[in-house]
């Protein structure tokens, strides 16, 4: 195969605030370039996962290669890398950006610039990408493209007058976008003759091909038989196949060369040998320096994940390992709970990330899970000077040896229309927020800045924000570091036995309220037993809330079904089946959903 002319390659991604139409535009581009016939075209081709389609969000970065015949008569190879829009998945965006030369910025013609619009633009600029704005949804009655163009120029400071005005939904002016990609986004540079230097921006596990590494070549070339080395892990392997991305399929090719985006499979046994962000080089002729890679993303939210059926523990471990291959930000380590048995303490980027992982484990790996209350990493300063990073409340040392504790804070920026400033400020106050500033971006839009404890936003802050602003507020945050805080460990005692899986760390001022709510909720969830069950919330030895599940006094099947024993049996089996889904704590059987129900205490505001 002839060496592909670098000048004919454009590597780009599409960035946008959630819901501004990024995936729809991607679909239209793919459609327009005839990669798929209309019949083959499924809505939102790049959102492969069932979960992504259902939720209408992009979770994973996806890549596709498109051939486009431009107005200059030349054929160009466009490598499109789709990126997630949610704040939790920022790191995915960052990974994709590193593989591109340019970013198409999609802005909603009605809503204008939103929090993630900015965050993504800054990310793109950080990666030295050329940002090319596109105004989408011009078909909406409330669309005001000229206002949005001005907003882009004022707020972001990039030229936007000739930004294509499109409707991705209706396929309007998509051609303009493609032309501009060719004209405005630079071709990759890189030397075919130099030693191989490729960035791993993703990898997946395929049961037939093994580990499939998605990479962007910056220098050199790679083909079947090349002996490659992973810079960070030192793992070496021989390339089995190289190829490019079709829409939803892998297309093998002879060679990948500098500037190209594609995939590599090699005889890699262990999924851990290919870390995303690592550099691939030629084992026999290695490059001197690795690529910059990515900033390692650190999990911010932790929770315990346990299989409902204890026997599924190894399955859960396998599943987590496979997911981790796709998702470098997921971390896990084994832990045990008295209440829940063997499981894993897992780290996530945020609560949505947690939910997504949980749902993927349940759907794709068919696992039934019990999740414990999510928490953050607390710093425990002991009297002997030692500092512990606490991710599991059960590991909190005895209060007598604790000097003080710190919790992580975030600097939050909330963009909201002026009508809802009041309710949002109130929400931030309730969540122990420290007011910093308020700026008006325009007459009707303001940016509120608060320092908030991370602990307070991981549960349901997003939902509360949306409901109190009728969806008009958007929110972004960055880690700000640790602050000393009056934290306590709240324990739940069921029938006077502490249930470790229900313990959590909380600010002392909110402990009472939460303890009360948890007891109330647990009272609803725990079925009545043959004896009375006290449910208590306690800080240390002090009980701060109590509820009681009354004892069952009568449960008789005083009905004669004649000789139809099967009906009687079915009834008893149902009773027994209900018990199976429960966890035994002392004498008490607790349904698994009770553990989950306490996670969403605030949902009914």
């Amino acid at each position: 195969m002839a060496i592909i002319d670098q000048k004919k390659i454009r590597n780009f991604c599409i960035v946008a605030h959630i819901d501004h139409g990024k995936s729809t535009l991607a679909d239209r581009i793919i459609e327009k370039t005839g990669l798929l016939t209309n019949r083959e075209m499924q809505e939102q081709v790049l959102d492969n996962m069932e979960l992504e389609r259902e939720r209408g969000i992009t979770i994973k970065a996806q890549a596709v290669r498109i051939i486009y015949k431009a107005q200059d008569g030349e054929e160009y190879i466009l490598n499109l890398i789709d990126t997630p829009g949610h704040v939790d998945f920022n790191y995915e965006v960052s990974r994709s950006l590193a593989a591109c030369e340019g970013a198409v910025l999609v802005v909603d013609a009605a809503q204008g610039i939103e929090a993630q619009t900015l965050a993504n633009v800054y990310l793109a600029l950080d990666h030295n990408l050329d940002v090319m704005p596109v105004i989408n949804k011009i078909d909406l009655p409330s669309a005001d493209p000229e206002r949005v163009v001005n907003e882009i120029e004022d707020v972001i400071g990039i030229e936007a007058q000739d930004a294509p005005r499109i409707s991705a939904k209706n396929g309007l002016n998509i051609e303009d976008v493609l032309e501009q990609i060719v004209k405005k986004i630079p071709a990759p540079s890189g030397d075919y003759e130099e030693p191989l230097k490729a960035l791993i921006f993703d990898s997946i596990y395929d049961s037939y091909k093994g580990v499939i590494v998605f990479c962007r070549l910056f220098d050199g070339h790679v083909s079947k038989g090349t002996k490659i080395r992973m810079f960070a892990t030192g793992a070496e392997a021989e390339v089995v196949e190289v190829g490019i991305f079709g829409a939803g399929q892998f297309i093998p090719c002879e060679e990948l060369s500098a500037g190209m985006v594609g995939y590599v499979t090699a005889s890699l046994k262990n999924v851990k040998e290919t870390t995303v962000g690592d550099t691939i080089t030629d084992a026999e002729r290695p490059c001197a320096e690795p690529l910059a890679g990515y900033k390692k993303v650190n999990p911010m939210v932790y929770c315990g994940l346990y299989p409902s059926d204890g026997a599924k523990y190894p399955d859960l471990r396998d599943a987590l390992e496979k997911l981790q291959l796709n998702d470098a930000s997921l971390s896990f380590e084994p832990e045990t709970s008295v209440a829940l048995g063997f499981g894993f303490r897992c780290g996530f980027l945020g609560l949505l990330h947690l939910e997504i992982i949980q749902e993927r484990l349940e759907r794709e790996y068919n696992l039934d899970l019990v999740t414990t209350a999510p928490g953050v990493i607390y710093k425990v300063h002991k009297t002997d000077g030692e500092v512990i990073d606490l991710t599991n409340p059960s590991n909190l040392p005895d209060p007598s040896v604790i000097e003080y504790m710190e919790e992580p804070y975030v600097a939050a920026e909330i963009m909201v229309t002026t009508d809802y400033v009041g309710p949002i400020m109130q929400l931030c106050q309730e969540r122990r927020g420290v007011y910093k500033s308020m700026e008006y971006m325009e007459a009707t839009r303001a940016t509120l800045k608060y320092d908030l404890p991370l602990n307070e936003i991981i549960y349901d802050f997003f939902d509360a924000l949306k409901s109190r602003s009728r969806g008009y507020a958007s929110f972004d945050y960055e880690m700000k570091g640790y602050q000393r805080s009056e934290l306590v460990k709240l324990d739940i005692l069921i029938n006077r036995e502490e249930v470790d899986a229900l313990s959590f760390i909380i600010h002392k001022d909110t402990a009472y309220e939460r303890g009360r709510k948890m007891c109330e909720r647990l009272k609803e969830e725990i079925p009545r037993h043959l004896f009375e069950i006290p449910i208590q919330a306690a800080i240390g030895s002090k009980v701060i809330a109590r509820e009681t599940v009354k004892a069952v006094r009568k449960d008789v099947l005083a009905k004669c079904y004649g000789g139809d024993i099967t009906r009687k049996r079915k009834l008893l089996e149902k009773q027994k089946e209900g018990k199976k889904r429960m966890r035994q704590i002392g004498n008490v059987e607790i349904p698994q959903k009770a553990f989950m129900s306490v996670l969403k205490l605030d949902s009914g505001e």
Partner: protein
Amino acid sequence: MVKCCPNISDETIKPGLGIRRDTDVKKEISLYIHIPFCVNKCNYCDFLSFPACTGTCKAAYINALQREMELYAKEADQYRVVSVYIGGGTPSILSLEQIEMLMYTLREVWDVDADAEITIEMNPGTADQMKLLGYRQLGINRISMGLQTTNKEELACLGRIYNYDHFYIAWKMLREAGFDNINIDIMMGLPGQTFQSYQKTLSKVLSLRPEHVSAYSLIIEENTPFYNNPAVLSQLPDEETERMMYTFTKNFLEGYGYCQYEISNYAVEGRECRHNIVYWEDRSYLGLGLGASSYMSGNRFTNTADLEYYIQYYNDEKCVSLMPLEKTVIDTKTHMEEFMFLGLRMMQGVSRQRFKSLFGKDIYDVYGTVLNKYEGMELLTVSGDSVSLTAQGVSLSNIIMADFLL
């Protein structure tokens, strides 16, 4: 608590001195005959019964039943019948001639013990003097009356078509016809029922001195008008009231010399329903007619519930064999479970020795943990050969029995 009903099982079920052929080699069996017709369907009823059937339909059904019985001729040879129960629906809705035809065929095919307990279910309002005398002549010696409650509003809510006066007239007729073994069904936990109204029902019933009382709890079943009906559900007595009703039944009846021998059944001495005990004591029975269940030679099976199909199949002149039915073989595990959860319904409980002779294992080897758990909670007692529930255990029997599933 005074144990007032020692050793009902073997003694009572064993026949007396009737004249039989080949008695010693024949196994015992009980027969259930289902009559799926009634005058109108009650609001809580989920049994197989069809109020709308025509006379022709009934005749065809009786014909089918007779045919089904005849086709059992070969099996019948190995058995002698210790009890017969004609249930429904409302079997007394049939004409005397129809019952006569059934009893005739039954005796032709089966070897019925001379002193077999033969029960027919009856609703107040379907009784008449001629019919009752006819029943007596046919050897029917036990009547089960579905009264449910004496309270007018409660009866109306259930969709029953009579009042207590009708019932009383029927009752008088039964006694005049010479029936000396009568059961009255009553229900607790009815919509709108109070503890006081239940007490009243029970006192009224007791003043008649029936030989047997069945006191059931209303169970709201799917596919009945009561199901998911907020007007009904909101009127149900609370758990505590129902528990009081249950306890009251026991104390009150025991005060009058009745003995609770099963979770919902009370009788004066010697009048325990033998047919019912067969179900709880893991003994054989054959169900004839629509949707009837059987337990024979370690198999459980149930007749079709499709009335039209049943009638058509057994009325077909070319029909030479029984309808093929799916049989569930009761394996040892299932058998143990059933032995326990059925046996524990009996106040005398299950026999450890019988457990051992059936399964070759001591009951504690299989159920040690559960037995100890509930013994510790005083919900179950083990004394001598018997394992039984305590009064409190009976109140919570569902929970306990579920634990006997392996």
